[in-house]
């Protein structure tokens, strides 16, 4: 069982329940009871009214019956006098006398009687003193009247059984009529009084019932009226209480709001200070890219515009970015507002991390800046409602990074060049510079010839140009390798790669040469660096040379072209043999070399470089192979003089004791390249001649020493085309290979 206190508490907490239990239900019960009671009293009242009416009506008949008796006696008297039949009057007299008797007896003793309206009605015996006194008077009068009436009936009427009629005389009838008439008057008076008294009594009884009935009706009415009244009052009071409570709550809320407002004001002031001082452009944008009401002050400086709130960020960027970049930016912002896309993935592909923008300069022209944007979504209920945007001016950072990068690249390149040239004798370096300049000029002159285009000679003419360029680059690379100038060697190698790729194209156009001219410009830039460093090294080398106390003859020897070529070739053999994992020695007849190189040192150097690289790459076998075929493990390269020919040509021979020309490989390659007819009966000399074709190589792969197929082409171009000499190849496959080079005497 629950604690009564709990119920009381529960009821107190529910005012409507309390009012219902302790007011509305009792009042309703009272109202119902009152209505029921009033209904009962009304029914009683109706009964009393009916009874009263009947009683008074019955009492009223006493007078009528009395008058009927008087009238009947007078008629009987007249009939007797007239000697007529008085039967009807006697009958009427008898009936009236019987009814009057019943009536008076009913009032005396209480009995059922038929009312004038035919209703059988129970008349109570009279108990009221006043009515009883009147009734006694009427009883006395009635006894006198009844006696005469009964006598008249007995004498004038039909004879009753067992009775003997006593005939009335006229005198007796007259006396009876007079008596009855007199008594009837008294009876009427008493009957009237009796009726009034009965009416008074009936009224008293009705009044006695009306008071409680009225009271009950009043109670019921009051109860019925009380319910809505109290309910209304309660509602009003409840509403007033609610209003009061709301007012109190409102007051409390207002107070709280004021407190919060103050806190917000403080927070806003702080936020404003932050937004005023933060060195970053901060803003919120909506899905249309419109900037929110608040943004940092720095944003106006970064975007160089005032009144940014409410403006479209995309609209601002449209004027600052390229069309392509603007489209990318627009798509990216759409992606940011696409809640289906993962934010982490989207942030990774931010295209605006360091975007270049251009602001119009007030004085004309433009201001070029770099801006870095970063984004963050603001999501509510799964919907991206805003995007937070932070923007920084990263111009200084980008500028420094680029400067640093350029500076490091330049420094690295210069260091490479410096390390390369520091061991190179000045005159060798000078010769290299001259060679590079000459080759670059050759390249540019080759490209410059516009007449080929004008004459519509695209195609093969362009391919020939490309091969000419190739030869220059290849020669440049060989010389760079000779002096171990790796920067140039690598640059030339990359240049060769581009040229090879172009040569492989079936059709060439002028557009294809854009890469060539750019690579050429790169080599020119490297040459510029080399010349700059060479100038700086001059001041250092002079003191070193003085400290070395070199004799003039020694210096002259060092500066001799043949000596330089010999030294360079020895170094080249050592480096290439090491790179190719071969053991090789080089012997040079200095006198013979001097004889041919004195007039054309660069050409002889270029040719010997290519021959040396060619032998090492193609002819010289690795030591195990050599041992297997009975050769010494170390291969031998040699340069020696040739007797002057009958035509007056000077000659040198370059020999290697390697495998020599691989005639089968040369034939296959030549057939594949269309140089000779496949399957034809070609003389060995015709096959061997193919090695001088541009781009011809039997190498299966390209490395820095061979594989481009340009070495022999260069040799032919130098010896035959440039110097007007001749080349003779002698080869015993598997034993040796000799290149006899003949030059005319210098003019």
């Amino acid at each position, binding site marked *: 069982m629950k604690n009564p206190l709990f119920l009381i508490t529960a009821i107190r907490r529910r005012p409507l329940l309390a009012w219902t239990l302790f007011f509305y239900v009792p009042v309703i019960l009272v109202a119902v009871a009152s209505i029921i009671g009033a209904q009962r009293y009304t029914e009683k009242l109706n009964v009393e009214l009916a009874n009263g009416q009947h009683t008074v009506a019955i009492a009223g008949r006493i007078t009528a019956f009395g008058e009927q008796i008087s009238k009947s006696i007078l008629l009987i008297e007249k009939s007797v006098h007239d000697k007529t039949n008085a039967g009807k009057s006697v009958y009427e007299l008898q009936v009236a006398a019987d009814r009057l008797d019943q009536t008076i007896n009913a009032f005396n003793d209480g009995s059922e009687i038929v009312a004038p309206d035919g209703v059988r009605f129970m008349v109570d015996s009279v108990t009221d003193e006043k009515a009883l006194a009147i009734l006694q008077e009427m009883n006395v009068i009635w006894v006198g009247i009844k006696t005469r009436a009964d006598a008249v009936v007995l004498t004038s009427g039909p004879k009753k059984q067992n009775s003997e009629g006593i005939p009335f005389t006229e005198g007796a009838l007259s006396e009876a009529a007079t008596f009855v008439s007199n008594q009837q008057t008294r009876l009427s008076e008493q009957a009237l009084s009796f009726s009034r008294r009965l009416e008074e009594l009936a009224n008293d009884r009705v009044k006695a019932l009306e008071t409680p009935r009225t009271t009950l009706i009043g109670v019921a009415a009051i109860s019925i009226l009380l319910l809505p009244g109290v309910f209304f009052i309660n509602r009003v009071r409840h509403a007033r209480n609610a209003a009061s409570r709301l007012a109190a709550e409102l007051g409390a809320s207002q107070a709280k709001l004021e407190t919060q407002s103050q806190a917000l004001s403080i927070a806003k002031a702080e936020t404003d200070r932050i937004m005023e001082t933060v060195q970053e452009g901060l803003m919120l944008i909506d899905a249309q890219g419109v900037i929110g009401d608040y943004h940092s002050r720095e944003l106006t400086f970064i975007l160089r515009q005032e009144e940014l709130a409410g403006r479209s960020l995309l609209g601002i960027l449209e004027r*600052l*970015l*390229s*069309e*392509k*970049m603007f489209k990318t930016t627009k798509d990216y912002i759409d992606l940011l507002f696409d809640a289906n896309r993962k934010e982490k993935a989207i942030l990774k592909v931010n295209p605006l991390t360091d975007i*270049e*923008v*251009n602001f119009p300069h007030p004085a004309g*022209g*433009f*201001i*070029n*800046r*770099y801006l870095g944007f970063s984004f963050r979504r603001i999501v509510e209920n799964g919907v991206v409602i805003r995007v937070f945007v932070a923007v920084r001016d990263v*111009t200084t950072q*980008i*500028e420094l990074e*680029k*400067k640093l990068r350029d500076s490091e690249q330049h420094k690295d390149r210069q260091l490479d060049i410096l390390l390369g040239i520091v061991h190179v004798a000045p005159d060798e370096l000078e010769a290299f510079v001259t060679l590079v300049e000459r080759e670059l000029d050759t390249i*540019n002159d*080759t*490209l*410059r*010839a*516009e007449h*080929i*285009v*004008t004459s519509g000679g*695209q195609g093969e003419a*362009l391919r020939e*140009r490309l091969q000419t360029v190739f030869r220059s680059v290849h020669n440049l690379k060989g010389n760079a390798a000779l002096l171990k100038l790796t920067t140039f060697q690598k640059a030339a190698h990359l240049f060769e790669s581009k040229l090879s790729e172009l040569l492989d194209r079936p059709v060439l*156009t*002028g*557009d294809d*040469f*854009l*890469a*060539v*001219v*750019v690579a*050429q*410009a790169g080599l*020119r*830039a490297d040459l510029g660096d080399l010349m700059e460093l060479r100038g700086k090294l001059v001041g250092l080398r002079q003191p070193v040379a003085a400290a070395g106390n070199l004799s003039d003859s020694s210096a002259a020897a060092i500066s001799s072209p043949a000596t330089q070529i010999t030294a360079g070739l020895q170094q080249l053999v050592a480096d290439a043999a090491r790179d190719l994992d071969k053991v090789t020695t080089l012997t040079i007849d200095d006198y013979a070399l001097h004889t041919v190189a004195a007039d054309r040192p660069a050409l002889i150097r270029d040719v010997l470089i290519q021959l040396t690289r060619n032998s090492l790459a193609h002819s010289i076998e690795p030591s195990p192979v050599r041992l297997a075929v009975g050769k010494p493990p170390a291969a031998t390269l040699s340069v020696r003089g040739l007797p002057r020919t009958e035509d007056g040509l000077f000659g040198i021979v370059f020999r290697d004791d390697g495998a020599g020309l691989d005639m089968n490989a040369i034939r296959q390659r030549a057939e594949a390249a269309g140089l000779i007819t496949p399957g034809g009966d070609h003389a060995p000399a015709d096959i061997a001649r193919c090695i001088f074709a541009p781009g011809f190589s039997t190498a299966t792969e390209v490395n820095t020493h061979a594989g481009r197929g340009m070495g022999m082409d260069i040799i032919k171009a130098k010896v035959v085309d440039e110097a007007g000499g001749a080349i003779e190849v002698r080869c015993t496959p598997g034993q040796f290979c000799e290149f006899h080079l003949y030059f005319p005497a210098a003019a």
Partner: protein
Amino acid sequence: MEETILKIFARSITRYFAMVAGGEAVLGTPYLSAENESVALDFSAVIGITGSHRGNIYYTAPREKLHALLPLIGEVTPDDRLCAELVGEITNTISGNAREELGGGFMISTPFVLEGGPLTVHTAKDSTCYILPVTWNHHRSRVLVSIQQNLATS
């Protein structure tokens, strides 16, 4: 300079002739301008580049070529004034195309027209002048590109 930038100008000049003159223009082998080399033809126009790049863009063409081209653009009575305007327009067009591809930072000046040679090519510091020979209808002309990417400037 990047090869891509040269390609933009090469594509732009050939496209110009394809659209305006209705004929194919052929790009010759590009080369570098040598020092003191005279590259000017009869009419030349130059546009200065600032912003993301700095330097100059030139277009130079002979009178005969311009006289052949002018009727195709509605000028039936060619004269030197119209030739000067045309080289200016061509220079402006190819520079504008480059601006579209290189971005708003590629700022171009109004063209300045020179008549006759010699033409002194102003190159940016540490920059090289590339010459793109263009042949249209057997007439030679040249686009000279001497620009270098610029660091941001305030």
